[in-house]
């Protein structure tokens, strides 16, 4: 177990390097960092440009440039953003905090409701509630998140106040403009809509996974054996059914992080929620290389990490899987 984990971890490092190298090349080709620097700072002096090139590792040799960039990145000598020459880390840190808050909230709500609903449907396959859950999940999967977001905006930003005379959920930002300090209620209210957009997707996916997984388990022989031993139905269900049904679901959960991040990007953009998604779209549109690279490294690293968690947890939860 431990050896397996360590071996996978050891593999993750070269993979991270390789993927970040590819990202570096892709961004240099795709966003042309030098051009976008000159575009935003048309009157930059020669030294400034040289300095920008050197600190970002923008030499004509991509491999050398990458290692130059990597050295600066690892030693935390990060270049400043091209627009307004801001420090990158504080900005990234804030965005990360906002997104982790929103993402965790959405995932926890989505996964718990999704698992419960899936279980609820699987207990009586073919019944009316099964059909209802299936249809709901089907709708949830079929409707792209930005459509939900736009419709939420239409309802909550415009019509709710028109119909009921007051706004229920604010539709942009983390706090109202000008607000200072921490206020849990306000924060939750601001998170509600972007959270729901992501959570709907998560609920739909997970209820489907859970339903099919639990149905598979229910039809297996050991469930019949457990029943015939005379264990109470509840025990059969929880100890034998749900436990085994969760194994594939957990794996998929860890692999699903990419789609959750994707949903967050969309939802943050529409609700002007200052998180990683908005950060990415803004800096991507500006071609802001110094802002983009650390973001990419973080996302690639977390993707790899969750991949690893999926593999390890799968092996950990299911003793039938032999490692190596």
């Amino acid at each position: 177990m431990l050896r397996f984990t360590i071996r996978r971890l050891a593999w993750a490092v070269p993979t991270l390097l390789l993927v970040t190298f590819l990202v570096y090349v892709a961004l240099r080709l795709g966003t042309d960092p030098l051009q976008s620097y000159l575009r935003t700072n048309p009157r930059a002096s020669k030294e400034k440009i040289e300095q920008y090139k050197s600190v970002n590792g923008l030499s004509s040799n991509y491999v050398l440039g990458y290692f130059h960039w990597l050295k600066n990145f690892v030693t935390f000598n990060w270049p400043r953003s091209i627009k307004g020459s801001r420090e990158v880390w504080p900005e990234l840190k804030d965005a990360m905090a906002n997104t982790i808050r929103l993402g965790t909230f959405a995932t926890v709500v989505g996964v718990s409701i999704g698992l419960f609903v899936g279980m609820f449907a699987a207990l009586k396959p073919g019944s009316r509630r099964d059909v209802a859950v299936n249809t709901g999940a089907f709708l949830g999967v079929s409707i792209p998140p930005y459509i939900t977001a736009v419709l939420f905006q239409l309802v909550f930003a415009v019509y709710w106040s028109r119909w009921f005379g007051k706004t229920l959920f604010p539709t942009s930002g983390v706090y109202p403009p000008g607000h200072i300090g921490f206020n849990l209620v306000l924060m939750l209210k601001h998170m509600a809509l972007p959270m729901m957009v992501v959570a709907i997707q998560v609920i739909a996916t997970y209820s489907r996974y859970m339903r099919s997984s639990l149905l598979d388990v229910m039809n297996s022989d050991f469930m019949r054996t457990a029943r015939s031993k005379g264990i109470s139905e509840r025990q059969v269900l929880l100890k034998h059914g749900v436990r085994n049904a969760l194994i594939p679901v957990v794996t998929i959960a860890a692999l699903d992080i990419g789609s959750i991040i994707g949903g967050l990007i969309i939802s943050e953009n529409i609700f002007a929620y200052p998180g990683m998604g908005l950060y990415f779209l803004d800096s991507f549109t500006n071609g802001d290389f110094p802002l983009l690279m650390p973001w990419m490294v973080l996302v690639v690293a977390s993707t790899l990490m969750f991949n690893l968690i999926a593999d390890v947890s799968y092996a950990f939860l299911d003793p039938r899987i032999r490692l190596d």
Partner: protein
Amino acid sequence: MTEFATISPKRMAMRRFLSHKAAVGSCVLLAIMVVAVILAPISARYGVNESVRKPPNTFLPPQKLAWFGTDDIGRDLYSRLIYGIRVSLIIGLFTAVISTVIGCVVGAVAGFRGGRFDDVVMRVTDLFLAFPFLVALLVIRNTMGSIGWLTAIIGDKSSVRFIVFLLAFFGWMGVARIVRGQVLALKEREFIEAARAVGATRRYIVRHHLLPNSIGPIMVSLSFAVVGAITAESTLAFFGYGPQAGDGATSLGILVGAAKGAVQTGYWWIAVFPCFALVLISLAINFIGDALRDATDPRLDRGE
């Protein structure tokens, strides 16, 4: 002699598919849409870029003159929707076919060959599937668009052709995975062994035994690939990175994207109709895919 009511698997699949009412309804709906879209010059009441009447004509609510209302420069939303669906369906179909073909080839080779090639392909596929789709799409879009010789073949960044190739570049992985799984499962079966024993080449086995036997899952993933491509295109267009064909031509994504700015002011029709059309298409194709899966999966014997 006793007679057994035997039917071929194909007919059984057909019968099962037809018993899925939602899927049949979806087929009818899509057929109507396709006809409307092909006959766009007749079925649309105005041109793509034509305003319904002389100003003031902006943001008219739905009325007799413009069934679905008009947009910010007075164009008929209903007509634009028809043209938009046309572009989106074209993108969906072409992308799905190209990516399914690539996926079949890669998946079949990986599954049949096994070994190092299989390992590498599946690792890459896993990584791509786990990475945030939208980010990869945006970054690779720009990268592909800036390589001169590539844009000479697949067109400019804002062309429909480019979007098709871009989405196909991403779409094959899911198919490859499914085909690989099928091939792995089939590879050890007796009839393949028999084929090998009589001296069939690998190429022959893959083409005549493995792929035809995986046709069910391939069809299913093809249909889901169509939805995937249509939604991906609209996501791109929603953020302003979609196709920008000239002369005000449009796609579902562009129309939904226009909704982003319009909702705050309460022009609900600009948001509701394109969103509704997109959801309808996506639902219909998903239903068909689901029914295909049920129909072609021989393990799901529902005792009919």
